[in-house]
């Protein structure tokens, strides 16, 4: 695993995916070592008067040959806005890699990835890594969104396995929320592991389903962070062993350890 480092990464490309999502590919000046899906970066945003602290983003992909890291960023406020507006060639100051990744499944296991919003970022990285390593794992991905316009990266998931979707307005896939999809509602026992990342209510609903049928389940949390590497104790979540830091003990947690 790669040690934590602070580096200026150069924006190689900045692609707008839809109204408010951008994909940034960042060139690292140092050799990237192994980074686990689920790990994240913490980015400094100097060109805004309201971004004193860094902004955390999941790692969306690593290209060890090009030596690049990709981020999948939704423009929700000043920090993400400056980042999604960064032109190619400019540098961004990044602390990475932070936190722990998802646990790998065993051979032949069937796994279900349940994502919503920018929560698909670490899940897609995970799916691609599993695929790349040629592990004999059966990957199913369930992506939920409000409308079909908000669904992203279905094709990318499709390259790694089966894809399902739900939309609240029924414009694509099953109408409703992810928990209304048969994969979660009826067939969950058929999976060995469920991994989820997205809005907290979604993850809680997925966790409840998994707990009900006693299926292994990991979720990736997004608590507000001040440092991102375990020194401030601001990002805690309540676990069966007390307050734990989302940044260093997580962001990936087994739901057995959470007090949900």
């Amino acid at each position: 695993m790669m040690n934590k480092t602070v580096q200026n990464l150069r924006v190689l490309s900045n692609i707008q995916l839809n109204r408010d999502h951008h994909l940034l590919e960042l060139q690292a000046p140092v050799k990237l070592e192994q980074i686990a899906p689920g790990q994240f970066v913490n980015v400094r945003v100097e060109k805004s008067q309201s971004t004193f602290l860094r902004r955390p983003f999941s790692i969306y992909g690593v290209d060890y040959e090009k030596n690049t890291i990709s981020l999948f960023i939704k423009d929700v406020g000043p920090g993400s806005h400056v980042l999604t507006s960064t032109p190619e060639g400019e540098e961004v100051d990044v602390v990475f890699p932070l936190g722990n990744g998802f646990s790998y499944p065993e051979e032949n296991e069937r796994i279900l990835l349940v994502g919503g919003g920018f929560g698909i970022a670490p899940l897609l990285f995970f799916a691609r890594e599993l695929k790349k390593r040629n592990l004999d794992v059966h990957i199913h991905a369930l992506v939920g969104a409000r409308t079909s316009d908000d669904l992203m990266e279905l094709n990318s998931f499709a390259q790694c396995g089966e894809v399902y979707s739900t939309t609240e307005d029924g414009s694509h896939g099953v109408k409703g929320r992810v928990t209304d999809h048969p994969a979660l509602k009826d067939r969950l026992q058929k999976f060995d592991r469920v991994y989820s990342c997205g809005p907290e209510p979604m993850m809680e609903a997925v966790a409840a389903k998994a707990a009900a049928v006693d299926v292994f389940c990991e979720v990736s949390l997004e608590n507000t962070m001040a440092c991102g590497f375990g020194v401030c104790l601001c990002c805690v979540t309540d676990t069966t062993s007390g307050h734990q830091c989302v940044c260093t003990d997580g962001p990936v947690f087994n739901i057995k350890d959470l007090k949900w």
Partner: protein
Amino acid sequence: MVDLGVKIGNLDLKNPVMTASGTFGYGLEFEDFFDLNRLGGFVVKGTTLHARQGNPYPRSAETPSGMLNAVGLQNRGVKYFAENIYPRLEKFQTNVLVNVSGSTVEEYVECAEVINELEHIPGIELNISCPNVKEGGMTFGTSCPSAEAVVRAVRKVYDKHLMVKLSPNVTSIEEIARAVENVGADSVSLINTLLAMAIDAESRKPLLSTITGGLSGPAVKPVALRMVWQVAQAVKIPIVGMGGIMNAADAVEFMLAGASAIQVGTAGFVDPLAPVKIVEGIEDYLKRHKIESVTDLVGSLQL
């Protein structure tokens, strides 16, 4: 060559840059970023006699040029520290101080007694200024009699360097500083966080679980500098200054105002390399200004 060494009472620091309690974990978390031995010292997180869970999440909020925290002294207690953490800190060739808090004078005393036995801990920083705990904490640091009581009691049992960390949430910080000097503090460190609050207008809720919390970062620097300046006129013991120090120029300002050493806190969240960059920056500053020893800066503000 310039001389970066400073003395804080009987503590020898290779340079005036320390890191601040609660912002540096046990130091170990920073080892990926730089060699901790490059620091003059570091202060490990707030330690209490008994383990504390701290406050519920959310514990932090970003504010203009700063942040609020309401960690509430989460730690596993001084015994756990002595047995499990301390052995991993012995290897460091720099001053490792323990920040000590308590809800009662007795708790402070018992905690200090345990730390007194730890050979490689040359001093404690007595936190009488934490705004984030219900009992004790800041209330000790906001009146002279209570500040005196806790410092006097700890002084009796603690032989090594006793640094007392002052609260900025007072009408006259000079008076508190003089009071703790009179009952045996070897140095004072200031400032702890300013009691503050943040609200989310949209949800109409406070941003911290505890409603109020402690403000740190560059926003507080002007207040911290003023307090260091005031305390420097009031006491003879050395002052360790902090509050919003982000770079070497900030550090120099605190020394000009009267601090013999400084601590870097919140800056380490924004730039984990800030503490070492500040060491290097002070060295550059001294060379550029042809000042031989960093001690010549202390209190040398030109009026």
